[in-house]
């Protein structure tokens, strides 16, 4: 071991190996306060992860209640009003508390500075503040549940949202407002960090693609989220003070609300999916042991998606009565986003070509992502075509489409990322066998849940229906059974990951053979990541990495670097 390090003079590796035995970010300080008020990005990332998974549990419970209610047409387990509350809470919690912050705030926070070779984010206190804001937002959501709940759908369409009798509307809107700030601060922090804290040698085109993705995401967070803030504030003002902005009875325009709402909420879809694509780019390359194919195309496609994503919001309003010209333009622009997404998929496939593909759990979930996101993206093409949209809008086809993108895409990639960085975060390895089993349950369960919904939707089953025509009963039941199977998969993941904390094998610094900088740190990393800035190279050059069976991980080998180094 010592020989390896000395022949490959990277002093931080030595420091990292030393750190593994002694001090790391988990053991660096003790007590609950050392967590709640930490400014260490790694600890904040872990807290985000735990909190977001708790929110996921809550949102998941509502999802299961919704699916169970739909086992039969008409009343099954709850009343129509409760059903309406449940799908609203499911949507609002999953979107605002789980999927939007999910990858950037939890995994991004942990990984970004280490991947970059920095000691922390540019503004560690702001980072802590944005976590505290997230918690405040989550508490407001809980407050909404106890103060009469909400039944508006997560979209809060006016005039329904300004007239409904349920008391939780204002708290939930305030929650969205506060969460918006949390998101903006995180984005700001990421952008400044990537601009300012890159160590010598870390040029823009040596940035790992996950960081390009987080960067593009941060741009959207900063530019789009303020509009959400304004929108929900206006909604609160209208609901509380009766000021006419959106409500026609008061002289407002309900379609204006939809424009405002989707001006944020469509780009938000890219806040969700871009970081997911970033994770996939990392994992595909590492688990194929092959340089990512078309680095530049992938990096620029992230930026392109972020930019195009701002000009397509009107595709949510094709049947709302906006003018035909506007509708046509939005349809055309919507298709522009599909191109960079397609480019990424082909580049991932090309990366696998000629690689050495290892089907460990992170890779399995990544392949699931490509499969599911493929369906999610392609079904978006149906919805972009105006004539087809008129039929499919507001049906289960849309429900299935966005679950394929948001859950099958973002959430599955997040699970892949959790499995990928778990050894780094916790210093422990989980059971590979159970990981693969969980993949099977989640993958099958997911498709069983949502595929039938495409069929229902194209046959005219509208969304948000408590009662439904009996012809759809069988497909609804399939879908519900799928959701139970998926639940089993999630419970299994929770069990073996928690188990690994206590009984898992100790993780080596680089279990998968990744070449990005976080794998140069020990697992778990020391409190300040690096003692001196690590030398940044090509993040997808695996040539010098050799597998060392004694430690069950990869180390930098002794082979001469120049021999088969290649241009990027």
């Amino acid at each position, binding site marked *: 071991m010592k020989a390896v390090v000395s022949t490959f003079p990277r002093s931080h590796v030595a420091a990292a190996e030393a750190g593994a035995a002694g001090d790391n970010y988990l053991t660096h300080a003790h007590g609950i306060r050392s967590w709640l008020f930490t400014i260490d990005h790694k600890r904040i990332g872990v807290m985000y992860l735990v909190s977001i998974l708790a929110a996921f549990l809550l949102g998941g419970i509502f999802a299961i209640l919704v699916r169970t209610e739909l086992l039969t047409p008409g009343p099954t387990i709850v009343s129509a009003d409760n059903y*309406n509350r449940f799908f609203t809470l499911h949507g609002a919690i999953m979107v605002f508390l789980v999927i939007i912050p999910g990858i950037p705030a939890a995994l991004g926070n942990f990984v970004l500075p280490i991947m970059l070779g920095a000691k922390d984010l540019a503004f560690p206190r702001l980072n802590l503040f944005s976590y505290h804001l997230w918690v405040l937002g989550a508490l407001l959501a809980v407050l909404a549940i106890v103060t009469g709940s909400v039944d508006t759908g997560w979209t809060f369409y006016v005039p329904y949202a300004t007239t409904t009798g349920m008391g939780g509307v204002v708290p939930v809107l305030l929650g969205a407002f506060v969460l918006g700030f949390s998101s903006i601060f995180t984005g700001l922090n990421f952008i400044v960090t990537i601009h300012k804290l890159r160590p010598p040698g870390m040029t823009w085109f040596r940035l790992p693609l996950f960081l390009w993705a987080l960067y593009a995401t941060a741009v959207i967070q900063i530019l789009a989220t303020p509009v959400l803030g304004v929108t929900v504030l206006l909604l609160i003002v209208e609901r509380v003070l009766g000021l006419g902005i959106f409500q026609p009875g008061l002289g407002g325009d309900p379609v204006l609300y939809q424009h405002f709402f989707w001006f944020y909420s469509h780009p938000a879809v890219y806040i969700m999916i871009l970081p997911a694509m970033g994770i996939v780019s990392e994992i595909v390359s590492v688990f194929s042991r092959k340089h990512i194919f078309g680095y530049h195309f992938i990096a620029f496609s992230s930026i392109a998606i972020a930019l195009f994503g701002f000009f397509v919001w009107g595709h949510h309003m094709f049947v709302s009565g906006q003018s035909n010209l506007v509708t046509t333009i939005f349809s055309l622009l919507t298709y522009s986003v599909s191109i960079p997404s397609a480019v990424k998929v082909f580049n991932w496939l090309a990366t696998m070509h000629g690689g050495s*593909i290892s089907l460990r759990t992170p890779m399995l979930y990544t392949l699931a992502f490509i499969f599911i996101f493929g369906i999610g993206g392609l079904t978006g093409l149906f919805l972009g075509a105006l004539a087809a949209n008129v039929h499919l809008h507001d049906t289960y086809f849309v429900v299935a489409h966005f679950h394929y993108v948001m859950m099958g895409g973002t959430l599955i990639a997040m699970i892949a990322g959790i499995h990928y960085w778990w050894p780094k975060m916790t210093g422990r390895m989980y059971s590979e066998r159970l990981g693969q089993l969980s993949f099977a349950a989640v993958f099958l369960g997911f498709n069983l849940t949502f595929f039938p919904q495409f069929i229902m939707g194209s046959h005219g089953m509208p969304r948000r229906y408590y009662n439904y025509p009996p012809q759809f009963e069988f497909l609804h039941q399939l879908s519900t059974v799928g959701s139970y199977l998926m639940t089993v998969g999630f419970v299994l993941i929770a069990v073996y990951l928690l188990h690994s904390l206590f009984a898992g094998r100790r993780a080596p610094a680089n279990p998968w053979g990744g070449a990005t900088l976080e794998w140069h740190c020990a697992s778990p990393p020391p409190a300040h990541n690096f003692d001196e800035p690590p030398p940044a190279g090509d993040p997808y050059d695996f040539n010098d990495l050799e597998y060392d069976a004694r430690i069950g991980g990869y180390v930098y080998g002794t082979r001469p670097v120049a021999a088969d180094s290649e241009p990027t």
Partner: protein
Amino acid sequence: MPPAASTIAPHTDAVFYFIYTVSLFFFTLIVLLMAYFVFRYRRRVEGERGPGRTTHHTALELTWTAVPLVLVVLMFYSGFRGFMNLMNPPAGALDIRVLGQKWLWSFTYPNGHVDTELHVPVDTPVRLTLESNDVIHSFFIPAFRIKRDAVPGRYNRIWFQATRPGEYLALCAEYCGTQHSDMLARVVVHEPGLYEKWLAEAADPFRTRSLAEVGQLLVAKRCGGCHSVDGSANIGPTFKGIYEHSVTLADGSTVVADDNYIRESILEPRAKIVRGYEPVMPTFKGQLKDREITAIIEYIKALSDEATKPRSDEGTEQ
């Protein structure tokens, strides 16, 4: 796709199946390649390297940028053509107004008749003008492939031409609250000549029926979603046995449900709220004619007579 019964439907389906074919092709391609690579380049020993060295290939990458680009422009165009057709009704279409309100569709025919069912002649262009008087609803007939929001404060239009006589279902596709999923309407496409006959009869139900019978029809169509006639409580109180009985209001006072009270409840539902119920009843001002209101009152009276009769019978038995 569900059975197609309008002139638009085959166009929409053509767009759908065009995109479907392209998507299926690419999806199969992606999955096959993925499966093949996973198998062909599987890692046998940890630490092993694969044969591939290429890190990029600009011509290839430009190809898989350009090919999808061409395809999506075609998709856009096919969808656009269908949509323009849908938005521009031919001259001389039959005009029907559609009002969405919680949780009932009502249709106003050119002769002023208001109905809760949409009746149209086959092979005739029909133009719908949609409006709402509470929240947003969305009028959706899957068999015709049409959908359009009914937005308060504005009029939205859509048209269709039915191609097959028969019965279809119209649904509400925009979430609107408790009974969103029950906001359905029957759509009847008539054989040539039968539409006019139906309209004439529907417009004057009093010609062939007694007042209470007309009232029964109206209650079933317009009030049945919220009021039962069998004594069970629903969103609103039952009609059974209320006539000329006293009612406790939300403020604790009582009134007798006489003709004037019922009339007021229908026209000004917020004026007096029955204890234990939410004030969600919409007004029927301007939608029910005086004679129809009288018919409803007559029917509610008849319901009470039925309700009291069996009771006196029981009394004699005991």
